[in-house]
């Protein structure tokens, strides 16, 4: 018997009902309602997405902005429940979706490590025992007792990554986070990710850097307008995506003078 995939999406759909005039306050809503103004529009961020990611696999996701990459990540992370289809994730998810996630700016680094670690589902006592190791990896040992609002972006990124990956998660979601770090951090985090993948973590990697996808992913999908347009070997998917991008650019550019 083979183990079930860690991430399983079956015909998953993510649709929002957006109020046409987008009343964002109660007052506006009442005004709109009395004027019979509210019309709802269905906006489909993802449609009919089916995919499976097994332990140790790295799924690269490519697509233009607005194709649904972030929605896909949030759906896998369990933050946005699908409006149709089914999403099953077997295990703990460490999501590096937007950085600085889960930090309370008034609290110190030490307090934030415990807070963020607990939010990721760990026992606070276990996290407390790991504070020094996490801070050491992130290079913030000296600043442990200072509020994190004084931290630099790089420090926050390193700390978030260190907390997320301190315990082996079953799923690691990485969304362009590596863009903020310096070379040294990039190398160390790539190194740590390799070890996690080797130990069986399933990774979903969103990047606009095609070289990263080809190098690190074991499989790739191309999202277009909320649908999976291609699914296969990273090199093939990236080649098709890049070729399509060039064509579109050629179509849009004004004809050159002969």
């Amino acid at each position, binding site marked *: 018997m083979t183990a079930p995939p860690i991430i399983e999406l079956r015909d998953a759909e993510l649709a929002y009902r957006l109020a046409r005039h987008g009343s964002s306050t*109660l007052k506006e809503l009442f005004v709109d309602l009395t004027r019979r103004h509210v019309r709802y529009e269905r906006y489909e961020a993802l449609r009919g997405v089916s995919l499976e990611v097994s332990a140790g696999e790295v799924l690269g996701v490519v697509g233009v902005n607005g194709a649904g990459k972030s929605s896909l990540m949030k759906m896998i992370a369990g*933050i946005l429940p699908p409006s149709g289809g089914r999403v099953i994730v077997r295990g703990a998810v460490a999501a590096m979706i937007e950085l600085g996630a889960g930090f309370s700016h008034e609290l110190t680094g030490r*307090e934030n490590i415990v*807070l963020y670690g607990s*939010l990721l589902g760990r026992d606070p006592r276990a996290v407390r025992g790991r504070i020094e190791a996490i801070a050491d990896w992130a290079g913030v040992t000296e600043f442990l007792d200072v509020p994190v609002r004084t931290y630099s972006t790089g420090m926050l990124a390193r700390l978030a990554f260190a907390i997320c990956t301190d315990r082996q998660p079953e799923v690691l979601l990485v969304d362009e986070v590596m863009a903020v770090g310096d070379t040294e951090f990039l190398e160390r985090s790539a190194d740590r990710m390799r070890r996690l993948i080797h130990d069986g973590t399933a990774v979903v990697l969103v990047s606009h850097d095609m070289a990263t996808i080809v190098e690190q992913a074991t499989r790739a999908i191309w999202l277009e307008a909320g649908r999976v347009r291609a699914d296969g070997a990273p090199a093939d998917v990236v080649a098709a995506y890049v070729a399509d991008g060039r064509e579109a650019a050629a179509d849009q550019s004004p004809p050159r003078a002969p």
Partner: protein
Amino acid sequence: MSGTIYDSAAPRPTVVADLRAVWRSRGLLGVLVARDLAVRYKRSVLGVWWTLLNPLLETIVLWIVFSHIFRFATPGVPYSVFVLSGILVLTSFQQTVIGAAGAMLLQSELLRKVRVAPALFSLSTAMANLITFAFTLLPLAVVMAIAGVAPNPALPLIVPVVLALVGTAFGFGLALAPIVARFPDTLNLLRIALTLLGYLAPIFYPIAIVPEKYRIIVELNPLYHFVTLFRVLLFGDGLGSGWSWLAIAVSTTVCVAVGRSVHTALRRGAFAAL
């Protein structure tokens, strides 16, 4: 494997499953309560002393206004003790409702990044308020000692009353949390409604000044029963009326049960807005 499985098609959790989930999250809840208290007091010089000072200052103002200018007769107890005990109950109720209702909005940035039940934030706020309430009993004890008011031997029974008070407020806020996340200005309306609720309960005035025909309005207000029981157990005689005990038990059960259902039903819609 940590054994946590997320399945979007899983059926809605039962009450027992929800309670188990809360129990499993007790570690996280502890951290959230500690953070709540820490953030609340970190930026002010007086820190936690504000909690003690605020109701005291308010009491002094009301004591001047009502026992020297308007002169309410509060039989058997000095006005200062009467009003401070009322204010503590009202403030705790208001702060818990506002805190629990605003929790999802306040944590929206976090909820967009980490999969965690938003109800936990409402719950941790309520628990933090419970701890704060325990602290505010200190100035109350001081005022009672100065006024020479002897406590009721049944004093320990205020514990279930306060638990029920915060429970009712939590249930109320839990139902509103997804609505506030979607429409933040609901909080302003809520503040006004809570102020009104406070004036409709005998917090600042004794029930005796309310004309007989309007008394039913006061008695239908759950705050009336909380504050009356609290006062009886604090400085009165006996254990309070059975009706009041029944009223607070019913209001807590109904508020928490309805709050949970409404919260679960509206949560998804609120997430799309976050």
